[in-house]
Every structure is written in structure tokens, then in C-alpha cells.
């Protein structure tokens, strides 16, 4: 039988600390977690801070940890949760809390500034670029990213080891690096940067980023591992290096 009301335990607090506060909201059919949070705002806590925008899983604003799992609040239906128990909603753990469910995600934008830009090869004789659909199919998967930063949030490299933020770009940025590195027109080589200063070697392939991605991007299999293999080509494969030297490719 469907719950008559939802019992929510929502994190209230700021960078100095806080607590989970319980709220009870009448259940309606089709509600998602963000609807319930809005109902709490409307009826019980008008000062509850929450970041949201599209309510359609495309803006990447309403990332949170629902029952401890990183998810978009707007895409998590209440009937997918065990509503016989209280539902916890907490802010993303990896980023500094500003207030309640709102975190400071500027780390991601700082890391984005360090990505060497797209550098296309010279145009062809007729002044255009040409590439085929099969050349960019692979890259288009990466362009689905909505920058919700759930992958960055769940990645234990920075989630549990704050000190690694200095030298670890994180899965979202690795997706961006992969999109550029695999682009048929791009001529920049970012492999040394990835190895030395972006911390690609910190990733131990535990695939949590892939598990939480609301756009179902195969972050580990299609972005991070191919980047690791490209780094191996350049730095850890003496035979490949020798062949490249001999063939000049």
C-alpha cells in the first residue's frame, strides 16, 4: 500500500555543522524527491536552501544524496524508494556546504579552466573542415554530460581524500579530456598533463562515476580507460614507442 505521507530527514546546516531535521509531507502520486523538498519549503521551512532549475534532469542543478546515494532529486521518484522508512536527503559530500542542500561546486569550474582548449588542424584547401559521422559518434556520448557533478561527488579519490583535489581533475573533467583527445580535428596532446598534473593515475577504475551518471555515460569504459591506454602508449609501452620511432607515426 502506498504511503499516506512521506517522512523526510533533510540536512539543515552550513559549513560549521548541522543536523538532519524531520519533516512529514502528504504523499501524492507521481512525486519526485524535488517535489517533496519544494513542499517542505512551502509548508515547513521557507528558508530551506536547495539548488534546482529545470526539473527535467537536464540542468544538473539538484544533485544530492538520497538515502546516501548520489542522485538528481528531480529524477528520483518517491515510489522508487522505501517510503515505509524515513528518506534522508543530504548535500553532496565532496564539496563544501554553503547551506542546507546547496554546495560550492567551484572546484569543478577551476579544474575546467585548466583543460587545454580545442586546437583544430589547419583547414583544407577549400577552407573547410571535414569529418565523418563515425569519427564523432564516440565523442558525442561525452557531450551528453549535464555537469551535475554527481560523478565528481562520488569519486572516492576526492570524496574521502580532500588533499587530492589539488592534483586530480575527476571523472567529469576526464570526460571532457576524452572528448578533446578523441576529436578527429584536434591536434593538442594532453597525455602528459593528464599523467603528471591531472591525476589520471589516481583513478582505480571502481566505476562509481559510471554508476551514478544520470545521462548513462560510460565514463570509465569509454573515457577514463581509453585515456589511461593513451597514456600507456606514450609513457609505459616501450615497444609501441619503438614502433612509432621506426615508422615515424
Amino acid at each position, binding site marked *: 500500500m502506498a504511503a499516506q505521507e512521506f517522512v523526510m530527514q533533510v540536512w539543515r546546516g552550513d559549513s560549521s555543522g548541522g543536523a538532519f531535521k524531520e519533516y512529514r509531507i502528504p504523499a501524492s502520486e507521481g512525486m519526485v524527491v524535488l517535489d517533496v523538498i519544494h513542499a517542505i519549503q512551502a509548508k515547513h521551512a521557507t528558508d530551506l536552501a536547495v539548488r534546482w532549475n529545470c526539473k527535467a534532469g537536464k540542468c544538473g542543478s539538484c544533485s544530492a544524496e538520497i*538515502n*546516501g546515494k548520489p542522485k538528481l532529486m528531480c529524477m528520483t521518484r518517491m515510489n522508487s524508494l522505501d517510503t515505509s522508512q524515513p528518506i534522508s536527503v543530504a548535500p553532496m559530500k565532496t564539496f563544501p556546504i554553503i547551506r542546507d542542500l546547496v554546495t560550492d561546486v567551484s572546484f569543478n569550474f577551476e579544474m575546467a579552466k585548466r583543460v587545454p582548449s580545442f586546437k583544430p588542424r589547419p583547414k583544407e584547401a577549400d577552407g573547410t573542415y571535414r569529418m565523418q559521422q563515425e569519427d564523432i559518434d564516440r565523442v558525442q556520448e561525452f557531450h551528453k554530460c549535464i555537469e551535475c557533478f554527481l560523478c565528481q561527488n562520488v569519486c572516492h579519490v576526492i*570524496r574521502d581524500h580532500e588533499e587530492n583535489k589539488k592534483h586530480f581533475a575527476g571523472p567529469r573533467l576526464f570526460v571532457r579530456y576524452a572528448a578533446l583527445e578523441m576529436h578527429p580535428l584536434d591536434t593538442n596532446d594532453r597525455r602528459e598533463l593528464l599523467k603528471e598534473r591531472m591525476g589520471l593515475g589516481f583513478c*582505480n577504475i571502481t566505476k*562509481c562515476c559510471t554508476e551514478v551518471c544520470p545521462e548513462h555515460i560510460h565514463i570509465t569504459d569509454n573515457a577514463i580507460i581509453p585515456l589511461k591506454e593513451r597514456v600507456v602508449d606514450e609513457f609505459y609501452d616501450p615497444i609501441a614507442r619503438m614502433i612509432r620511432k621506426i615508422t615515424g607515426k
Partner: protein
Amino acid sequence: MSNGSAALQDIKTLKNVKTLRKDAWWVEPLLTFAVLFSFVVYATFRAFEDNYYYVAPYLSPFYSPCLVDTCAHVSWRIFGKMWLITPAMLILWIPGGFRMTCYYYRKAYYRSWWLSPPACAVRDGHTTYTGETRFPLLIQNIHRYFFYFATVILLFLWWDAFEAIHFPDGYGVGVGTLVLTLNATLLSLYSLSCHSCRHLCGGHLDSFSKNPGQYGVWKTLTKLNERHMLFAWVSLIWVALSDLYVRLLATGMIHDIRIF
């Protein structure tokens, strides 16, 4: 362990919380640990048992290729009588290394053995973390070399499957033939779905349209790669069962059934 609702009331800061997950997140790493641990124990026992690995025409995959003169069935005489310990040690480091450095198994054992992290959104079991940036984990980067060596071993396993139709009384097919053929098939699927294989066969290219042949291979390998985890587990379990089948035959505990 997960935090129940009562425990939530005591939390004053989120930084030190191990996890807020309420589901049984520990089941998957526990099962993974149990299966991998069982395999390691069984494989180690069989490698050092140095017996019951051949019964005509079946050679256990744990001893193939057998490269020593003293083997019950010599695949390729390379080491003569100089090799004094079990011949399995000459070859098992190759599939062992291939699986140890495999991108899928890394996920499996980093989670279940090393607790780094034990599950998503569950706190890492270690206070410091350097990932695969330092020795010895830097060795993970030579996965493709293990892939090359494992491919050679695989060729021998296919040869063994072919040899498994040569019975002392002529050609035929027994249950063991099917067991060894399926073993070679599953190990082939596991190898071909390898991320390094996918990269080497086409993934390294930026422009597929200029290399249509490699693009075709890459697309096929990508489809296999999507099931790499499945092939990793099924092939692991089947290779152990194949060895067990040969052992049971060799010890006389069961008898092979000739299909024709």
C-alpha cells in the same frame, strides 16, 4: 555499516560519516571477496598439487601448456628436466597477471579486498590514497603485455580443445571435449573483450573514417567489451570447473561420457 534513521539524528557534520546508504551495500563486495578468495585457494592448491592434471585426451587448463619434460603430457618441451617444481608455475603467472591487471578485476578487488572504496558513497577504508601513481600499482599499466602473453596461452588452450577429440581408440567427442572447448571459448571472449585489446585494435585512432577496417574491429570489440564483466566471471569459474573435471577424471572419481 549503514546508518539507520536513529543514527541520523546524532550526526552533526557530514564529513566523518562513513555512509548514509541504507541498502545492503556490503553484499556485493562480500560475494566478490568470497568467490575470488575461493578461486585463489583452489588454484594455488591445484598448482602445487602437481598431479591429476592429465587424463587422455584431456589436459587441465591450469597446466597448459606443459613445458617440462616431467609433465604427464608435454605440450612443448622447453625446460627439459631442469625444472624441479610444479610446471604450473611456469605459466599461471600469465593468466594470473592478466586478470590481476584487468580493468574489470581492478574494480572488483579494489572494492572487495582493498576497500578502496568498498562501495559507492561508502568511505574509503584507507586514510591516505595515491591510486595507481606509484609502485607497485604502477605495474597496472603493463596490462597490454599480459594480454599479449595470455593470447599465446589461449592458442595452446584451443590446441588442447582440438586434441581433446583424439582418444586412444580414435576420434570422438566426450563431455571433457565440450568442457575444454567451452573453456577456450569463454577465455577467448574474456580476452577479446579486454579494454587494452579494444584500444590496440582501433581505440587509439582519432579518425575512424580513414581506417574502416580497424573501425569495424573496434565496433565489434566494443560490443564484447560491454560484457567484459560477465565474461570475466564466467570464464574464471569455468576454468576452475574445467580443471576440477579433469582432476575428478584423473583420480577415478568420475568417468567421462563419450557422446560419439
